């Protein structure tokens, strides 16, 4: 009896071992096999594309083919679903010294990635390998590094933020041009709010939208919020920004009360129904969603206001920021064993042809200056490209993620007050004080 049992135990153990070993076949090498360049594999990390999955696959294949012809090496594409997942991937790769060779990092996270010092610094020689700095739209280089000497990010695609407005509703209200100042926007929204219509769609509960408004309004008034190592949140400009932002819901009542629960996609969906005048913050990527809604053919993009609230023209130290500098930068890992291949790859996908192909198949705006120029002829894109040119980078510091969080937190904690319909100045002050404390401590730690 024991013999039989021993046999079955051994058999079972054997089965497990075999399956486990079989399972192990799925793993790949971190870096390309040794030896000749032809056997190598470049590991690239980009965002998963759910809007155009098949086109994305096709684009990846076409690039991989071109790359293979050019260098003989293969490409392995890894994708991440959310910004948090990408950050986690960066962290685990940095700590272990192995992982993707090329990262496509959102501009907002480039300073964080830079602070890990795990990415290749781009000097003159490196830029030459990539085709030269002049190849890129000047504003897109704004968040490649803290200054010109210490750049790590190569601009890849642009995602400037704009407003969308309902052309029919504006025409019906007698508004000739979309608002150019924040006060004008409020005024237009008031005119457009009537019956079952709302003037403005704002996503108060989104995790990424609110701080963009605050920063933009503040920087237009001359306050970049993170001024060197000082946090300037308890500042009249920021207070005015919050008052305006909250005011749309509480005082002006130009926003749907349900917006206290909206994420950006819900706000877009609401705007797509065709009963809202302006969609306060969006990018050209929303075109697909808007075209699928009732607002198809009746919307257009416009620059976000560039004059701070409470003013009719920008103050002397104000910055003409039509959008935060938004898009993706490419970063090359310092631990990579295929740096040369990586540079060739980056050059390939930032060249004119690849950038235009990327736009055509996936709707991502190029960072390549020539490609962007050639898109000027598309009427739908004129304002968006304008916004891209007038994008201003957020302060380049490793603490920016925390500053962002602090600004957003002030909104999150205010939502119950917004829902009730009023928020006092005292409450805003106390929220700003909390945010100031958090932001300042993050900036103190920044190296």
């Amino acid at each position, binding site marked *: *009896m*024991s013999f039989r*049992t*021993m046999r*079955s*135990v051994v058999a*079972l153990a054997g089965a*497990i071992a075999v*399956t*486990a*070993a079989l*399972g*192990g076949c*799925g*793993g*790949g090498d*971190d870096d390309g096999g040794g030896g000749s360049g032809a056997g190598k594999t470049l590991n690239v990390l980009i*965002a*998963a594309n*759910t*809007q155009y*999955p*098949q086109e994305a*696959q096709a684009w990846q294949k076409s690039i991989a083919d071109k790359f293979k012809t050019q260098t003989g090496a293969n490409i*392995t594409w*890894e*994708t*991440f*679903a*959310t*910004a948090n*997942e990408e950050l*986690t*991937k960066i*962290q*685990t790769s940095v*700590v*272990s*010294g*192995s992982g993707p060779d090329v990262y496509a990092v*959102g501009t*907002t996270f480039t300073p964080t990635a830079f602070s890990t010092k795990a990415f290749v610094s781009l000097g003159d020689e490196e830029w030459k390998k990539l085709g030269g700095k002049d190849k890129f739209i000047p504003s897109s280089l704004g968040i490649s590094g803290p200054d010109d000497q210490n750049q790590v990010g190569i601009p890849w695609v642009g*995602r400037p933020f704009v407003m969308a407005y309902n052309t029919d509703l504006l025409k019906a209200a007698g508004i000739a041009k979309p608002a150019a100042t924040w006060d004008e926007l409020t005024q237009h929204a008031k005119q457009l709010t009537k019956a079952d219509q709302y003037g403005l769609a704002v996503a108060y509960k989104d995790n*990424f939208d609110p701080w963009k408004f605050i920063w933009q309004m503040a920087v237009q008034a001359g306050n970049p919020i993170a001024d060197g190592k000082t946090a300037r949140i308890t500042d009249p400009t920021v207070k005015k920004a919050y008052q305006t932002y909250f005011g749309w819901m509480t005082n002006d009542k130009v926003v749907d009360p349900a917006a206290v629960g909206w994420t*950006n*996609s*819900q706000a*877009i*969906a*609401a705007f*797509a*129904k065709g009963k809202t005048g302006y969609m306060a913050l*969006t*990018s*050209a*990527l*929303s075109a697909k*969603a808007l075209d*699928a809604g009732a607002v198809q053919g009746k919307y257009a993009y416009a620059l976000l206001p560039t004059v701070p609230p409470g003013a009719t023209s920008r103050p002397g130290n104000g910055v003409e920021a039509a959008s935060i500098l*938004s898009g993706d930068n490419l970063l090359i890992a310092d631990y990579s064993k295929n740096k040369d291949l990586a540079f060739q790859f980056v050059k390939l996908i930032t060249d004119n042809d690849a950038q235009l192909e990327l736009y055509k198949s996936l709707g991502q705006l190029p960072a390549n200056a020539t490609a962007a120029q050639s898109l000027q002829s598309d009427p739908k894109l004129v304002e968006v490209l304008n916004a891209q040119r007038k994008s201003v980078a957020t302060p380049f510091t490793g603490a920016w993620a925390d500053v962002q969080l602090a600004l957003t937190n002030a909104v999150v904690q205010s939502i119950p007050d917004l829902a009730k319909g009023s928020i006092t100045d005292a409450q805003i002050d106390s929220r700003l004080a909390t945010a100031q404390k958090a932001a300042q401590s993050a900036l103190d730690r920044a190296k």
Partner: protein
Amino acid sequence: MTLSTAARPDRRRAGRTAAGEANRLLPRPLLAVLTVGLCALVLVPISYILLASLNTDVGVASGEFWPSTFSGTSYTKIWTTADLSTGILNSVIVCGLVAVASALLGTTTAYVLVRYTFFGRLTILRGLVGLQSIPGTLMLLPVFVLFSSAGNYLGLTVIGTRWGLFVAYLTFALPFSTWVMVTYLRGLPRELEEAARTDGASTLVILFRIVFPLSLPAIVVSGIFAFLLGWNDVLFASVLTRPETQTAAVALQVFGSSQEGGALPVYSQMMAAALICAVPVVLLYLGFQRYLVGGLTAGGVK
């Protein structure tokens, strides 16, 4: 083994006819009310998932409950939006193995902990519970460092392989599986084991021929939990896998992704994918739940 298998069918038949009423735990009307109530509790949000999967992405994003337009396109799109088929396959392989292995190891460990006394027994038992209280977020980076060090210094590629994931999930599932079996095995009468032992059977024989068959309900339950632990884990899977070895949970995350700036998350597809991902687990459960029956040894001992 022969004793209990002969006893079981008798037991079940007896349970339904003659002693049927004796086995009834709740009066019929209460039974009906509770069943319907609990099912409704579960099914209302599920119906939302079903309806959303039959809606369009824009429709779901705007918060509709009842779709304004019914469309089954989500079910076809999900296979191309993310590598769902690879994900499900990988998940089934890894989680299936984890379930089997953790049930085996858990029962074995529990058996020793329950039937024998030795110094440190209580410490181990308490330690197992203590291990359950460790948050995954604390462990992520250290586990990753450990696994990647194995790759860097021992040449043992762990990150990105299925068996690396298997080892991680198995270890996380073990404390729980062990404890489930501990509570169950304690209620198992010793007579059969003692009889076998006096017959000269070794521990392994007792384990495989007596303990395992008798504790099938608990094994099924602990296997299910181990399976689900791996099935739904996102944190570790996202860092320990490559595109070829990614699990269903990682693939499902893709559907919830949204880029800043207006691209709509594909909610309808996410709901459809979630339902599809639930199917393997449900099928497995349907298959194994028939082992969740009682009346184990009563006839056998006599």
